[in-house]
């Protein structure tokens, strides 16, 4: 059975696209045929993060409007043949996505893919609504910061009332917390909400913590999902998340400040 994962948050700039690219690549590298869809109509970016921006010919809206077939629009990743990308349209028409159209494309993808990752745009408008509407699982990407936590909670309200599963009174969408851009040193100083603080407020199943990391910018500069940088903290954190999602019991990392040696401790500011 195929599973549809929405990567969502409400707030913009928290790491949804970074996360979508990383986990889609992670699932594909584990051998699962995975499609990742950019729902950010008008602001296509996932292609850039995945490094396939020059190979975009057709997009999501072309497929919905029958101007291209799904096979024509899907871009096969050059590094992993199990990963396919469906880019967003650059149209300014905000009504280009429809429930019927999105449903049709997802149903077709479900026939041959194991995981379908939907990269949601920010906000709670049409694009964000459609990205989560058909989801089975939701990865709620949250930064340890007041407005992000609040928006995540609003998104939880929407997931539990406005999704297809909610409307049909089926088993609710499974919600997972991904706490990203986490800085353990600042948490220790009392300057940043801790994992426990955020959990006390949102009480979600914690899939993992992604540290604030230089590796993310380097990865996006080169169009490589950060999960492929397996020496980096963020890359490892995303790999752990994929393992946990697939049912492995991987202990959490990157929550506490890395232990520095005596030298580091003496000179810590």
């Amino acid at each position: 059975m195929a599973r549809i994962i929405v990567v969502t948050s409400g707030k913009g700039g928290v790491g949804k696209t970074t996360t979508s690219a990383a986990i889609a690549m992670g699932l594909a590298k584990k051998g699962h045929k995975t499609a990742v869809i950019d729902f950010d109509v008008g602001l296509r970016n996932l292609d850039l993060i995945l490094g396939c921006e020059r190979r975009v010919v057709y997009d999501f809206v072309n497929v919905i409007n029958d101007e291209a077939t799904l096979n024509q629009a899907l871009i096969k990743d050059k590094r992993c043949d199990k990963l396919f990308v469906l880019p967003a349209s650059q149209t300014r028409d905000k009504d280009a996505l429809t429930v019927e159209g999105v449903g049709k494309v997802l149903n077709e993808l479900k026939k041959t893919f194991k995981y379908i990752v939907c990269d949601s745009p920010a906000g709670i408008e049409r694009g964000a609504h459609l990205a989560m509407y058909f989801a089975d699982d939701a990865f709620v990407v949250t930064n340890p910061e007041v407005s992000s936590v609040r928006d995540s909670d609003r998104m939880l309200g929407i997931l539990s009332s406005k999704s297809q599963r909610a409307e049909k009174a089926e088993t609710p969408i499974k919600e997972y917390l991904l706490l990203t851009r986490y800085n353990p040193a600042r948490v220790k100083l009392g300057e940043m909400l801790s994992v426990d603080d955020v959990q006390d407020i949102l009480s979600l199943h914690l899939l993992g913590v992604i540290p604030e990391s230089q590796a993310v910018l380097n990865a996006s500069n080169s169009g490589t999902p950060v999960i492929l940088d397996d020496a980096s903290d963020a890359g490892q954190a995303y790999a752990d998340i994929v393992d946990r999602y697939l049912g492995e019991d991987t202990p959490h990392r990157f929550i506490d400040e890395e232990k520095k040696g005596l030298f580091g401790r003496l000179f810590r500011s």
Partner: protein
Amino acid sequence: MSLLNYFKRTKPNTARLAKERLQILVAHERSARNQPSYLPELQKELMAVIKKYVQVNQDDISINYESDDDQETLELNIVLPEHD
């Protein structure tokens, strides 16, 4: 300030403040979104009925909806004007 206090002085813990504010806000927003959608309309109509009999302001009427696992309660509170 003693020297000891000087060294012990820490920056205010803003994370704690953030958490407290969020807990209050999120609890409030969650209860608001779980309210039945007819609530504002009900409030308006009740107001109209009550005004037929007593002179009250909008602020004098409050409707509180609460739900937990086994029951839902609707609490109506009307502050009647004082007698002259």
